[in-house]
């Protein structure tokens, strides 16, 4: 396929995706499952891509993602809750005087949320990034726990509403809002990855010493990767707050980091498109397709065994284990989605699948073709 053809394909795929979203918007009602699972998937996609930037592309194994998402979500919530509703939200402790009249535009607030998360990353990055692999993971995990406890602690009652959490956070407004934000953010990450910085990140991932010998400043590049990742984690956290409308510190437990990590792994460490596809697949499977496993089912007089509450999560975790064990590289490995790759795969699979059968989400990453 020539480069021109590929570009045309990419454009067509993106337009098809846009059209798909429009169709969903037009044919479903406000609260349909399809809409919200798509939105949730998009948010997870951004969280996974931002984690992948750090874990997959720079080789820094961080487990602090939930912490940065929590910061983003809280900052966003604090500055966007409508002034008229603050009384009801801070009904027990009252609202801090400084915040009483603050109500910002969502887009501006999103950026501020990201910036605050990034600033904290910069603050802790300098010391923490000196640590080697596992120790870095543990230190970031500790940081995430600290964030979670501190936001719910009583000295911050008038700001974060302590353990009671925040609600009345403005929603998306438009159905498309999260998709636009996510697409723009991921595009920026892709641009970064394809820049000289991105190449330096990959060099650090492959071999730190060799990278340093090539004249790459390890400290500043790691710092940059960490800050950028945290910035977008903050934004994904803020989107999560918009999606949920109500947050508490327990919205962002360590298991959230693990969830995102598993998405990254299933998609392939070091593949942006992989993370995106995996985010959609995992979220759809977990929130939608596998739900029937929790319901007792009787076909005729036959009671289907095992099906009862909790079974869905067991099946889900077994699937995860199988992927980790037998499909180690995940969906995409370190490769990105490309039309040549798609053609090759299709040829391999033969007539079983045609291009039309591919999930729309799978072509989302078409923009990253190389």
């Amino acid at each position, binding site marked *: 396929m020539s480069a021109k053809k590929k570009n045309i394909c990419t454009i067509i795929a993106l337009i098809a995706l846009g059209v798909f979203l*429009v169709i969903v918007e037009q044919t479903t009602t406000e*609260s349909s*499952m399809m809409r919200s699972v798509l939105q949730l998937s998009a948010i997870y996609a951004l969280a996974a891509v931002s984690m992948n930037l750090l874990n997959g592309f720079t080789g820094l194994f961080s487990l602090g993602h939930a912490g940065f998402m929590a910061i983003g979500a809280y900052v966003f919530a604090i500055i966007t809750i409508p002034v008229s509703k603050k009384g009801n939200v801070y009904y027990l*402790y009252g609202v801090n005087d400084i915040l009483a009249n603050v109500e910002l535009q969502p887009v501006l607030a999103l950026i501020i949320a990201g910036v605050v998360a990034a600033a904290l990353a910069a603050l802790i990055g300098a010391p923490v990034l000196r640590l080697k692999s596992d120790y870095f993971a543990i230190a970031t995990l500790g940081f995430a726990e600290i964030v979670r*406890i501190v936001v*719910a602690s009583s000295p911050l009652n008038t700001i974060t509403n302590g353990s009671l*959490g925040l609600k009345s956070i403005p929603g998306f407004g438009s*159905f498309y809002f999260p998709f636009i934000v996510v697409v723009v953010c991921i595009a920026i990450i892709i641009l970064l990855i394809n820049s000289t910085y991105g190449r330096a990140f990959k060099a650090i991932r492959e071999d730190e010493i060799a990278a340093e010998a090539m004249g790459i400043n390890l400290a500043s590049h790691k710092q940059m990767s960490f800050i950028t990742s945290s910035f977008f984690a903050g934004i994904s956290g803020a989107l999560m707050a918009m999606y949920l409308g109500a947050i508490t510190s*327990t919205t962002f437990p360590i298991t959230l980091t693990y969830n995102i990590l598993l998405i990254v792994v299933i998609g392939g460490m070091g593949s942006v498109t992989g993370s995106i596809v995996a985010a959609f697949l995992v979220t759809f499977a977990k929130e939608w397709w596998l739900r029937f496993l929790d319901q007792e089912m009787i076909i005729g007089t036959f009671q289907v065994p095992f099906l009862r509450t909790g079974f869905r999560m067991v099946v889900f975790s077994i699937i995860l284990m199988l992927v980790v064990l037998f499909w180690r590289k995940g969906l995409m490995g370190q490769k990105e989605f490309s039309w040549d790759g798609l053609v090759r795969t299709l040829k391999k699979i033969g007539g079983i699948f045609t291009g039309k059968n591919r999930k729309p989400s799978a072509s989302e990453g078409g923009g990253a073709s190389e």
Partner: protein
Amino acid sequence: MKKTALLLALLLTVSVFMAGCGGGGEEGGTTEGEATGGNTVEGTTIKIGVFEPTTGENGGGGMQEVLGVRYANEKFPTVDINGTTYDIELVEVDNQSDKAAAVTAAQSLISEGVVAVVGSYGSAVAIAAGETFAEAQVPAMGASCTNPQVTLDNDYYFRVCFLDPFQGTVMAQYALDEGYTQAAVISQNGDDYSTGLASYFKQAFEANGGTIVADETYQTNESDFNAILTSVKSSGAEVIFCPSSIATATLIIPQIAANGITAQVMAGDTWENAAIISPEAVGVVLSTFFDENDETNTVAVDFVNGFKEYLNADPQRITWNSGSDTVAAVSALGYDAYVAIYQALQALDGTDLETINSNDIRDALAGVTFDGVTGAISFDENGDAVKDTAYIKTITEESLQTSSFQFVKTQTVADL
């Protein structure tokens, strides 16, 4: 470089394209929403959603609430409206005690076509899903979510239980009535139920002449309380108020005993669960929604007998009910929540409706009054059940044999 420029241009185009559609789509959406609005019953099956956690932190209590709802459904499986007999079908969904999962869980109910929802145990998930129900214009009936924020600013959320401020104040009042003046409070960081109740208790206790001598906090899934309890012991507290989850209760009670603390232990409604009854727990006092042995409330007597029979019919139900046939208050509330919706459906009989829309049920709910298992129920303008009485119960030596709680007294608060 060329490629990235192209990519950027593309993305911008797409964004603008989508943004453009976004504006238009939104308008389309609202008009469409006004036209249809809410779910409508199709055929002769009325679907009622059961929105409860059956896994995760609150999975245990959530399951007991589900049992109450299932029993109610077994007892009232059909309803006659304007000459047609409708089957009522429960659609259950697990919200995993997790807010992110709660929103999609709620949505899956809506897309299944439910016209009303019961749930949820745990206020945080109810708050998270509240917007979804309100947007879909489907009424939700909270069974045991006691946080004020659940129904605040939400026209579609109702509840059959009393609220945290009431409960916290009642317990403070009870402690003062018993002559205690020095209290210790133990609450869970990040948990709205525990922290909220503790705050109301502190406010009411201090406002009425008591002193809070220790204010301790623990983390989610913490199981060692020795250090905290040593502090409580040395503070000289006469009463310890520790609203918490059942899991925490079963951990903290034996440790209180092991530390040789003799102060009165008090908690909220979550503790009314057979799982906490043990020799160490004798003397514990808690507030709850109903009294299983109250002979004067015939509805309750019927419910208790019927529900025990229902539980004993299947060993799995006993397992879910923490291994005994003791009736938990949340089961009773689950039952009442279902009955409230059932009453609203009955109220639609005789109206000139051609179809049954969830909005009609909402409107009917606002006017429902009935005698429930947990007392007379009617709803105020917020959608909260009007309740002014809490039942104080305790664990005695006798409880160990019967694995049930002993009723002490009813407690009301004058100035609430």
